[in-house]
């Protein structure tokens, strides 16, 4: 393959003393198309490749190389891009949707639940100073990070919230006590040094045991609270 291809570049100004082989030119074009966020016009490739490179020949060689592979080099107009081979599009399950970022509010509520558990909804609102929308908790439940722990033995028997094992798993924690404390948050620059002297950060109470002030939550409780649809009907 070498003989005919070696003279792809007639470098006028001798920048490249050794002419690029087709293989080298292909490598460059390949990397450029790969790294680009947009399909790459041939004119752009011409700019980056040595003067006189035969772009169509290079791209044709590359496209041929990729044709049987799981990823193909395709051309739309005069632009080039890599795309998953059409017959494999099923592996890229589109329906999964994108991973959603948690909203600021959800992050705050999650953090409060993690540090202050067992914690009731009213307590969360007290700490945040704003009302928490129903949707925020729903999102955290849906993510599988937050669960109902039990009911507080206090007037109204409010439901207490806590984190799940999946929470620990997702955030790479072995146990809840691995959450950094006040000094460590300060040292990491997350809390400023200018905090009032009474300021404290609680040590979360392990998720498994209920605290003394908690009763276990029952199926009935959940139904009563409207958190579970009454059993009986077949759900889809």
């Amino acid at each position, binding site marked *: 393959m070498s003989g005919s291809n070696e003279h792809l570049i007639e470098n006028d100004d001798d920048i490249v003393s050794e002419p690029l082989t087709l293989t080298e030119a292909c490598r460059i074009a390949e990397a450029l198309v790969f790294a680009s966020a947009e399909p790459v016009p041939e004119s752009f490739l011409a700019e980056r490749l040595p003067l006189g490179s035969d772009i169509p020949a290079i791209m044709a060689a590359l496209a041929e190389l990729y044709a049987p592979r799981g990823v193909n080099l395709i051309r739309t107009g005069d632009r080039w891009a*890599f795309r998953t081979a059409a017959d494999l599009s099923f592996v890229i399950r589109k329906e999964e949707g994108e991973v959603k*970022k948690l909203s600021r509010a959800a992050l705050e509520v999650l953090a409060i639940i993690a540090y202050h558990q067992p914690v009731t909804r009213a307590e969360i609102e007290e*700490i945040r100073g704003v009302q928490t929308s129903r949707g925020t908790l729903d999102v955290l439940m849906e993510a*599988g990070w937050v669960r109902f722990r039990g009911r507080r033995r206090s007037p109204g028997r409010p439901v207490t919230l806590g984190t799940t094992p999946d929470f620990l798993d997702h955030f790479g924690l072995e146990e809840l006590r691995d959450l950094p404390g006040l000094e460590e948050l300060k040292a990491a620059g997350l809390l400023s040094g200018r*905090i009032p002297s009474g300021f404290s950060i609680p040590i979360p109470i392990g998720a498994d045991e209920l605290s003394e002030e908690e009763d276990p939550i029952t199926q009935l409780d959940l139904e009563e609270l409207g958190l579970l649809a009454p059993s009986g009907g077949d759900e889809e």
Partner: protein
Amino acid sequence: MTTSQNVIPMDKLWQDVGIEKAADDPALMIDVAGFEGPLDLLLHLARSQKVDLSRISVLALAEQYLLFVESARRVRIELAADYLVMAAWLAYLKSRLLIPKQAKDDDGPSGEEMAATLAFRLKRLEAMRDAASRLVNRNRLGRDIFSRGAPEHIPHRSQSAFDASLYDLLSAYANLRQRTAVTQVTIERRKVWSLVDARELLTRMLGEIGDWTALQHYLLPYLAPEDRVTATASAFAASLELVREGRLEIRQDGAFQPIYLRKGEGRPVVPSAASIAEGSR
């Protein structure tokens, strides 16, 4: 303790520097800002000895450092307490190196051992620095090598359709708590020696001194006269705290005698009934 009469408060001195002082003084500036602490400065000085770190003359190094601190003091530059404590430690080290070797009846490390510790720390710091520069000069993602510019999907490990890192979580929490905390804090003018500072510095210094030492003796000469009182007070308060935790032992032979310190056994004096009795052994 001598109290010099002609002491001008630090603040005033600083203010004056720009105005009239510039004329009569050579107005030297010490650029401590370029250094990441005393160990960094020592490493810099050590490199100027142009020998391998394991063959360095610790004594000469100590000399150079002390000289540096002296010059800083001469031009009335306020050095961070870290630098002063290192100076005190080196002065102590120097005295240990220079006195004739005693019979091996004291339990502290010898001057030689202390010197070896210092050389080790310098070498380790230098090694980390080299490692850092090798690391940063690797082919880095986003600078030298690139990922797919037009990704077609994001693989996610498991069920969770949501993404958040521990850092996101912690910073959200810290921000929230900070925001809602009652922030009517009056910021105190920073003293040279807070209790926390003193504690930190004492711990660091005593880590390497096993013997009874009158730290004040080594430390005070490096402090500006008006700082000596606060330094003494803070260091004393901090040392009491450290004693309670078992990290320090303290001795004074009589009223107004020098206070000797040494590293504790490491057994905290737990304020429980059982250990209170045992604690006073």
